[in-house]
Structures are given as C-alpha cells and as structure tokens.
C-alpha cells in the first residue's frame, strides 16, 4: 500500500460502507413492527394516539436525512482540508 491516494480512497470507502450499514440496519428494523419482537411498538405513547410504530416511521425519515447531512458535512470538510 504505497499509494497514499489509494489509502485515502479506501478510508472513504470504509466510511461509505459504515453509513450504508447503519442505514440498512435501521431500514430493515422497520419490519420488526410486523413481528412479535416489535409488539411493544404497537402501544400508544402516553395519552396520545401516536403509537411507537408511527413514531418510528417519522424518526427514521428524519434520521436518514440527518445522516445524509452529516455525511455531506464530513465530505465537505475533508474536501476543504
């Protein structure tokens, strides 16, 4: 591994894969709602009508957008450096 550019690219590849892995785990965790393991999510939160399942959907959308923003920021910072 003498090419520093290749080492840099491989580091960035690991980051891409890490973000993707987290994304995929979160995404497929949504299917738990339809299994017995996700049963607690079907309960309402306090006195509201919002269930854990509904909250999970909203949070996943927001988390994914947040992850993209973080990824973009890291890329941007690295480019500037």
């Amino acid at each position, binding site marked *: 591994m003498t*090419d520093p*550019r*290749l080492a*840099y*690219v*491989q580091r*960035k*590849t690991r980051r*891409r*894969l890490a*973000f*993707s892995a987290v*994304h*995929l785990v979160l*995404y*497929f965790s*949504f*299917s*738990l*709602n*339809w*299994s017995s393991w*996700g049963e607690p*999510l*079907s309960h*309402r939160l306090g006195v*509201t*009508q*919002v*269930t854990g*399942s*509904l909250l999970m*959907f*909203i949070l*996943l*959308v*927001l988390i*994914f*957008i947040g*992850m*993209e*923003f973080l*990824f*973009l920021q890291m*890329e*941007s910072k690295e*480019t500037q450096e």
Partner: protein
Amino acid sequence: MKAMFLFLLRSAPLLVLSGVAAAAGSIDGEVEQQPLNTTAIVMFLLFVVMTLLITWRAAKTTTSSAAFYNAGGKITGLQNGAAIAGDFMSAASFLGITGLIFVGGFDGMILSLGAFAAWPLLMFMFAKRVRNLGSFTFVDVVSQRLARGQIRIVASIGTIAVVIMYLIAQMVGAGKLIQLLFGLPYEVAVITVSALVLAYVAFGGMLATTWVQIIKATLLLTGVTLIAILILARTGFSFNELLSLAVEKHPKGEAILSPGVVFKDPVQIATIQVSMLFGTLGLPHILMRLFTVPDMRQAQLSAFYASLFMGYFYLVLLVLGFGTVAFIYGNPEYFDADGKLTGGINMAAIHIASAMGGDILTGFMSAVSFATILAVVAGLTVSGAAAISHDLYAQVIKQGEPDPKTELRITRIAVFVIGLVAVVLGIAFENENVAFIAVMPMVTAASVTFPILLLSMFWSGLTTRGATYGAIAGFLSSLLLIVLGPQVWVSVIGNEQPLFPYDYPGLFTMPFAFAVIWLVSVTDRSARGEIDRANYHSLLVRSEFGEKAAGEGAVG
C-alpha cells in the same frame, strides 16, 4: 360500514401492488370511468402549455447528443434533486399510498419508507462515484473496468428491459388514471401521453425533461401541502386529534395505528423492502440524472435535496392518509349504493382534495396526477433512447467513435420508436392484469442492474464473466419467481394457489444474482478476468478524485 370495509380490504392487495409499484408509477386495481372533469382538463392544459414553451426554449440548446443525454451537465444540485423527486414521486405514490392508508392505516407506511429510503443510500454509495466514472448512463460506469463491448450489451439489454416494462405500467396507469380523473377514454390518455412525451424528449432532450419534472414536483408538493394544511385546520392543527378522529371513523378502530391490518407476514414486508430499496437504486433513468450536474459535489447535493423533497412528501402523505380515514369514512357523498368508494380506492386521495378544497382543488390534484405520469415517462424515454443510441450504437457498434450528427439522429429515432412501442403496448395491455408488469422493473433492477453496478465499484474480484452470468441469473430468476407467484400463477393463469408465495421475489433473486456473480468471478481464470481485477484500484482512485481514465474505458 363493516361490509364496505371488508370490500375495501379485499381490494387491498391490488392497492398494495400499485403502492409497491409506486416507483414504477403504475395505477392498478379496479377503476371506474368518472364524469367529464372540465376543471381538471383546463388545469392540465395549462401545464401542457407551460411545459411545451419550456421545450421550445430547450430545443435551441439541444443540438448534440451530449446535450440530449445530460442537458450539458449544467443542472444544479437543487434543480436535479427536485427533478429526481419529480421523476420518482409518481401518481401511484400519491394515490396508491394514500389509498392504502385509507384501507389499512399504518401498513401503508411500509410503502412510504421503502420509496424514501433509497435516496440516502444513493448518496452514501453511488452519487459521487457514479458521477465521476460515467458520462451519460450507468452502463458507462460498469464498462470502465470490464470488457467494454460485452458488458455494455448485457447492461443495455437490462436497461431496455426495465424501461419497456416500466413504460407498459406507466401507459396502462395513464389510461386508467384518465378514466378516473378526467372522464376521458383510455386510448385518448395513452396517445396523449405518448405525443406529449415525444414532443418534450425529441426536441428538448434531458433539459426539457428536467424542467417538466421540476414543475411537476413543485405542483405536487404544493398540492399535498395545501390539502394537509386544510385537513389539520379542521382538527385545530393537532395531529393527535386527527388520529383520534381516524380511529373513531375506521371500522378497525385503534388497529389502524399499528401494523397488521393488511400485512401479517414479516417476510412479505422484507420482500417489499428489498424490492423497493434496491430496485430504486438500479433504475437506469434515476441513475442517469446523476450525470446532468457539473461535478461530484452537485451529484451528492442532488441526492440530498431529493431526500429532503421526498422525505417531506411521504411525511405529508401521513396526514393525507389519516385525513382520508377521518373525513371520507362515513361520508355518503363518496360512496355508491353498494358501499364502494366512488371510483375505487385509488380515488381516496382525490376525494380528500374534494372534501377539503372543492372542485378547484380536485381539478388541480387531478391535473397534477396526470402530469406526474408525463414526467416519469419522459425520464424513461430519455433513458431508453440513451441505451440505444449511446450505449449500443455509439459505444458498441461504432467503438466509441460515432459521427455526432448520426448519433443525434439515431437518438431521436429511438425516442420515436419508444413512443410508438409505448402506445402499442399500452393499448395491447389495456385489459390485462398489469400488476406483475409493474413489479418486474423493480425486481429486475434490484436483481440485474444494482448488483453489477455495486460490485463494479466496490469489489475488486468482479470479472466480466461473473457480471454477465449474474445479470442473466438475476433476470431469469426474477422472471421465473414472478410467473410462479400470485400475480401470474393465480391472477393471470388462474391457478388456485401460487407455487411461490410472494409477489416481490427481490429478497431471493437479488442474493441469488450476487451469489452467481461471486461464484463465477472467483472461479474465472481467464486472461480477461485478470485484467478486470487489475483495473479495480485505478478505477477506485478515479471514482473518488474524478479523474478520467486514459481513453474512455478500462485498461486493457
């Protein structure tokens, strides 16, 4: 009310198909022609006039094949993000997902999440590298390190297959949508869509297509926002109050706030998730949009803005969906004498527009729904034409050195042929069960184009032979399992039980394609295989730094 709900629930599988095929933009399920809707037609004509004016302007700059394929690479990240959203947020997303929430409550959310989740992954994995490695199509990317001629032919055939299947679903969807929303005959819709798209694409290329998609996305987001505000205004801007009202009105009561009304099986959920997520990432007309921006930074921003627009859209659909439950159930104005929802379940979203904003908002949303089909078909047509003229003619037949004028002429001929094919197949499939055709492009894209694209950029061991065999295995297994599944084996052929239980075999066919690619690649001892592996590290560096290879293709 209970009988009506049971009817609606029996219709849910069809609705699920249209929802899952949201990316394919199809409208399936039962459809009834409605009375002539003059407001909707006038509003749609305004959209047409506006987009044709844009096409006229775009035609002045679309004088080369490059301008045709990627709008000269001058689209900004924000514009491209809006165009991607416009390309993907189909009529089926709006009508199908809202309708599924109307019937099954929370279960509709799986379709919203599936349609949204591809975009973050597009940014993490593909946006920058695809933009850096390709010129006009994703086939440019996979041909960088593999045997150019062979892999281009394989990937182009995959592209054309996806585009044709997608087009059939679109055209049949357009015909049905026109009957539903405008009260016009099926054939009028199919011919109108094709003629307009021919005008946009043949003269304005990717630039006109981009602006059609941007305008459509803007109108759709405006419309759903307006409806959501009007719904929330009736509940004191309280989402909790909206859910309470929905629970009170829906025959299933509180059950609609949790999973299980329509879907019971977690494996079925996983099959939908896989097909929607990885299918979207393998759609050639979506990947092609990454080449319309000037640099890799703008490509990443495109994916980010697309996520913002679509995340917002699917969150707003949550309000619309539960709004239909709260304000449509129990309202006799929207049900016929048999207790059926007027026009079928796909009309739930239009009925809520009517309930909230009267004829004007109904007409507006109907016009926007039809405009969505135009935008999607335009994107597909550009992609199909590029596969024929760029990938096959210019790069394979002419070995990368075509006569520019001839290439542009072939591009426009390809557009015309695709338009003609779309009309013929659209009319031929009018009375067919098209649900399986709507499923095919997503499953094929997940099992053919996605594995090749991913491994070409992330696995040093990939060889041309592995990619070829994997693509064939992915395509044939998709075809086989869809034929053996409920959509063909039961619905089309008429058997009682399917031989394969799931509608969307992506969960099985995609891993199978990956396994074949891996096995064939690691056992490939050919000289070409060695070159393919040796090409990987230089490709990796180019993919991050944006340098072009010596020549267009791979070393060797």
